[in-house]
């Protein structure tokens, strides 16, 4: 069942959060690829912060600024080498006000 289009967008949800963005130092990187793997492509739906998207060229892109550091993409895509996953530097990234 697709729920797309009916609800509040993820970007609007992320506005309520507090972040300390480490500009120019994304903590997750996508390995350059021609065709995305099944799991990497799934992240475009799965990422709860909507960080993953499909570019016109068909490759999967990542903007990690809104990352909630849940680790879902690490579980699905790190072992295969699709991505590299690190923590943001200490003090950076999502800072939960409530958690």
């Amino acid at each position, binding site marked *: *069942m697709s*729920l*797309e289009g*009916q*609800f*509040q967008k*993820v970007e609007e*949800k*992320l506005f*309520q*959060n507090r972040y*300390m963005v480490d500009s120019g130092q994304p903590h997750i990187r996508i390995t350059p690829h021609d065709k995305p793997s099944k*799991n990497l492509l*799934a992240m475009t*739906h*799965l990422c*709860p*912060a*909507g960080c993953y998207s499909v570019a016109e060229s068909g490759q999967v892109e990542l903007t990690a600024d809104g990352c*909630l*550091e*849940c*680790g*879902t993409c*690490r*579980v*699905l895509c*790190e*072992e295969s080498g699709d991505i590299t*996953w*690190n*923590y*943001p*530097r*200490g*003090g950076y*990234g*999502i*800072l*939960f*006000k*409530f*958690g």
Partner: protein
Amino acid sequence: MIDEKFDAIVIGAGMAGNAAAYTMASRGLKVLQLERGEYPGSKNVQGGILYADMLEKIIPEFRNEAPLERRLIEQRFWFMTDKAHTGMHYRNEDFNEEKPNRYTIIRSQFDRWFARQAQEKGAILLCETTAIELIQDAYGKVVGVRTDRSGGPIHADVVVLAEGVNGLLGARSDLRPRPTAQQVALAVKEMHFLPPEVIEARFNLKSDEGAVIEAAGTISNGMTGMGFIYTNKESISVGIGCLVSDFAENETSPSELLEAFKKHPSVAPLIAGSEVKEYAAHLIPEGGYKAIPQLFGNGWVICGDAGQLNNAIHREGSNLAMTSGRIAGEAIFQVKSRREPMNADNLALYKKMLDESFVLKDLKKYKDMPELLHTQAQNLFLTYPQLVSKAMENFVRVDGKPKIEKEKDTVTRFRKARGTFGLIGDAFRLARAWR
């Protein structure tokens, strides 16, 4: 940066890490605690329910000062279909006891308080410090950590890995595997703010009383998952979580699943008019007993979510984390008191004590449940809720149809959906996994 050597370095200032740091520091050990967030709790997410008994065993007087939201007097389980829910509610005035059994908490506040207790006992806490690597000696014994701060490595006799479900250190050093998609659920949660009196009216509560709703059914789109609604003092936590493997297979967006849950006619009135102040996501260990990695070795122990110590059936995690942290601290203290090395042989004491505690006894009891829930997701989360809902409707809707026909309809629906042997098999499988 730090030249001195510590008795123990604790990675993380969540439930497990704070319990371990507190336990060791209060027994006179020299403890360094590392937290990558700006403050303890800033990277942590929980529903969240605090179980008093396990905290009492660490800080008996915690009720006097810990930031607690509401004491829980009512538990609701909802079996949901698209437009209905069949509920089982348990409310008991005895929960208004002098020392209540369960409270809702807000982790960023609670973790700050808990970490401060450890500091007051002498633990040194370094925030905004990410541990990036374990240091091992020539024999493979863990002897310290490297952080992302300037300066060299920091040394200790033992490292307590309380780094959470998504901890990197243990996996990087091959001490534990990265969790698989079948072993973790992804949960998303929002904080909905409302005046306390509105929350109390909507949930039928008096001041400081709280209720929780845990819901399963069609809300998870046939995936293994659960929704939850917890009352805090002036906010309501609303969330939903499903197995990552199910999310991946169904290509479902968790944020849209949460939106659909919030719009359910049974849920929407509870949160109507609220102001949302945060949107969070976190993984929950769901692998159970069979997914628990090796929990100790030469110079290291693993506590809490990092060790998959979570009881998915009872939705208990923070208490297992807290207890494993406390037990690790006690075991390390015992080894230290005997002036013996922090090697695997001696640290096996931690596992032995954990085996004897409720932590591993409970997880062992439900060792077959995760598999059952994963393989029977369609039945448990789609078919049965719809059957139950229809049975209830047949029972309560009055429309002139003879009751005998209505009962027949209910029985026929169950038989048709699962078959007589299917029904018996489901009951048998559940009973076997449960005991």
